[in-house]
């Protein structure tokens, strides 16, 4: 499998298995991972599930561009972005980002960079579904724009 992987999939991921895979390169000294999870308090206070929509084609291109930008900034040995789509229940994982490098500084920074840019650039949209069946599209947060802006 390629050292730099992008997956957009309804299926869940096995974070432990992915971390092991990215750790296998003998040049790797640091692996950092991030998992985003469906939480109860979002725009609403009783979220039971999320519906994740995306723009097939543009999503993959956008994630590939974000990974390419991270590789231009840090000496990465490997990286993975696995973003789930479709209906995800409370507590289920949404996204996994893993970065691997010789040293931790690059792996930490690149992982945070990938998440910050994914949240503001990649064409995914979340709809919150409450326990009573009501639903609403999540509004974009200016704090996310701010988080991405600090890398410029």
């Amino acid at each position, binding site marked *: 499998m390629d050292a730099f992987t992008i997956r957009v999939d309804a299926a869940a991921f096995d974070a432990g298995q992915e971390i092991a895979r990215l750790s296998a390169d003998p040049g790797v000294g640091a692996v950092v991972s991030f998992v*985003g999870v469906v939480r109860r308090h979002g725009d609403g206070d009783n979220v039971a599930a999320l519906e*994740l*929509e*995306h*723009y097939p*084609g*543009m999503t993959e*291109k956008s994630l590939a561009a974000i990974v390419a930008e991270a590789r231009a900034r840090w000496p990465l040995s490997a990286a993975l972005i696995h*973003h789930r789509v479709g209906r995800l229940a409370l507590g289920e994982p*949404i*996204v996994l980002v893993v970065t691997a490098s010789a040293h931790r500084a690059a792996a930490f920074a690149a992982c945070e960079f990938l*998440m910050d840019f*994914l*949240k*503001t*650039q*990649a*064409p*995914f*949209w*979340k*709809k919150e579904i409450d326990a009573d069946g009501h639903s609403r*599209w*999540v*509004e*974009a*947060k200016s704090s*996310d724009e701010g988080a991405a802006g600090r890398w410029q």
Partner: protein
Amino acid sequence: MKLKLLYFARLKDAFGRDHETLESDAASVGALLAELRARGGAWADELAEGRVFRVALNQELATADAGLATGDEVAIFPPVTGG
């Protein structure tokens, strides 16, 4: 010329469709938006000046001055909220 239009998330719901094929003479993204606004109703409301939305031309983010050609894919969507 023929354009393929795509709508996502809140805009898909507001417009009651996720895609359409449009025969249009709009030379730019801005001209296309004006043509869609002229439909009135949700189109005029959601695409009004000052409303926040994004346009992608052939799967790359585009601005109002981007030129259009036949066969182009134009997507209109709210700011993204993944992750």
